[in-house]
């Protein structure tokens, strides 16, 4: 048992190091493309770390996390646009291009939206939960499309990447480091939550909600809290994603995006600390490698995914580090 724990820890450290060293080296060799690729991995991994709290720890199969990813993206896009045009937001509140402020807005908005969505969705379970979270995300998607003030179907460009005090975010490497640091922070939060009293209740809610209720802990409250925290982290990643691409669009809110976030987790290993990181690496590398060979890379992604679901349950972390055990 100690053996597997160590193996997972070594794998985790290896992945974390790899994700740091490759872009550093690429930057030295003046290959900014690979830095951007690593940034994409870090941001998608952070989004999936958020989802992993609901899905991996809580067993809540949210098929609508793109809603939060997209809301985070729109928070960045809308604030940046207003600031760029020197228009106040509303009631004379000034907009900002400061990343920390934007992150705060993204996180708060996602938390506030996640509470009612979660409160209604969590009254149900199983397939209903999957479909309702999907439907709520679609609702926000259609809202974004039909609201022309912020680009509607065409999305919203961020002309100059938002700023971070003391860092030149227009350069690929500093921006990567910001994203990487936030990913580590997200992972630390996931790890702390998983091991805490809250985490114990959340794990139990996944394994057997009746048992949790029978000891006097209402599963609903635990799940709703987890859902909101999960949404906030995914929303933060959305804000970073918009800044990475300097673009926000309804596609960030689409159900394909929700599906991809789940795919990241399953490729890497559901509920595992570094599952989303491993999954995001695999996914972005597939996209890059297969996408270079064929336009039809999604066909192969589909086949690989089907293979993983049918035959390699537990994902990459499951293959490398074995089955997860709880003390």
């Amino acid at each position: 048992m100690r053996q597997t724990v160590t193996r997972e820890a070594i794998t985790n450290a290896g992945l974390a190091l790899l994700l740091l060293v490759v872009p550093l080296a690429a930057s030295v060799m003046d290959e900014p493309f690979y830095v951007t690729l690593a940034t994409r991995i870090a941001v998608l991994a952070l989004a999936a770390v958020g989802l992993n709290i609901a899905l991996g720890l809580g067993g809540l199969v949210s098929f609508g996390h793109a809603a939060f990813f997209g809301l985070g993206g729109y928070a960045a896009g809308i604030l940046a646009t207003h600031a760029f045009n020197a228009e106040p937001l509303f009631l004379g509140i000034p907009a900002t291009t400061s990343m920390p402020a934007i992150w705060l807005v993204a996180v708060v908005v996602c938390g506030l939206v996640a509470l009612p969505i979660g409160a209604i969705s969590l009254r149900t379970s199983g397939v209903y939960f999957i479909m309702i979270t999907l439907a709520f995300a679609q609702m926000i998607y259609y809202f974004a499309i039909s609201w022309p003030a912020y680009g509607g179907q065409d999305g919203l460009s961020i002309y100059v990447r938002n700023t971070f005090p003391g860092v030149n975010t227009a350069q690929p490497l500093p921006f990567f480091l910001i994203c990487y640091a936030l990913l580590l922070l997200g992972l630390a939060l996931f790890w702390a939550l998983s091991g805490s009293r809250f985490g114990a209740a959340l794990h139990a809610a996944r394994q057997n909600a009746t048992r949790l209720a029978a000891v006097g802990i209402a599963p609903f409250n635990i799940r709703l809290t987890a859902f909101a925290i999960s949404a906030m982290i995914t929303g933060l990643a959305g804000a970073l994603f918009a800044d990475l691409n300097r673009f926000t669009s309804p596609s960030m809110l689409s159900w394909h995006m929700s599906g991809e976030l789940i795919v990241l987790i399953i490729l890497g290993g559901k509920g595992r600390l570094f599952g989303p990181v491993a999954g995001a690496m695999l996914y972005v590398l597939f996209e890059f490698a297969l996408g270079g060979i064929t336009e039809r890379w999604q066909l192969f992604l589909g086949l690989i995914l089907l293979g993983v679901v049918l035959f390699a349950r537990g994902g990459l972390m499951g293959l490398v580090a074995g089955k997860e055990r709880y003390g």
Partner: protein
Amino acid sequence: MAEPVLEIRDLRKSFGALKATDGVSLHLVSGEIHALIGPNGAGKSTLIHQISGSLTPDSGTIRFLGQDMAGLDMAARARLGLARSFQTSSLAQEFSALRNVMLAVQAKQGSSLRFFRPVMRDRSLEEPAMAMLERAGLADRAHVPAAELPHGERRQLEIAIALALGPKAFLLDEPMAGMGPEGSKNLTRFLDTLRREAPILLVEHDMDAVFALADRVSVLVYGRIIATGKVDEIRNDPEVRRAYLGEPA
């Protein structure tokens, strides 16, 4: 007589045409083991579900420690001190026996919305949990995942969890089910010591255990209680013998 810990009055619950609970009244007083017996399909589990809050009765009242339970869900009733065990073991399967009990200790200590301190290094959870496992005779199995425990030990673990809640009353739904004679005997001895902590409403098929433990017995047939009394009275009640033991009148 002191006010009963648990008092059920004229409880009714139907599923379509089936009257699963048909005007049941019973009570549980401090210090007693009150056994609920009856043939299969008599509605014993349905009754337990309504008391614990996983089913809503159609009518009637359930009062626990003087408080009406209507509108309170299972978790709220558990927090008030109503601990239950399940007919088929209901455990957090991936958690070890210890962590299953720690969850109950955590619940008893209050809010679970604590996000940072690791539970595995929290002695205020582990020590009481370990003590409960010891009492239930499971100390040496503390680190085995619940899914890997044999049936009898899962039953013991359920009771250790209930015990860790420091309850004001136990609802035990067939704790002996599927246990061998040796296991039943041990569990009987253990339950006998439990009544000092809190009264027990015991649903059980094992008549040896019922007759050894119960202060009072109620007999449930087709959703109705046909008799309540001391063990000897029930044993000799002609209506019980007819309805329950299938003897001719």
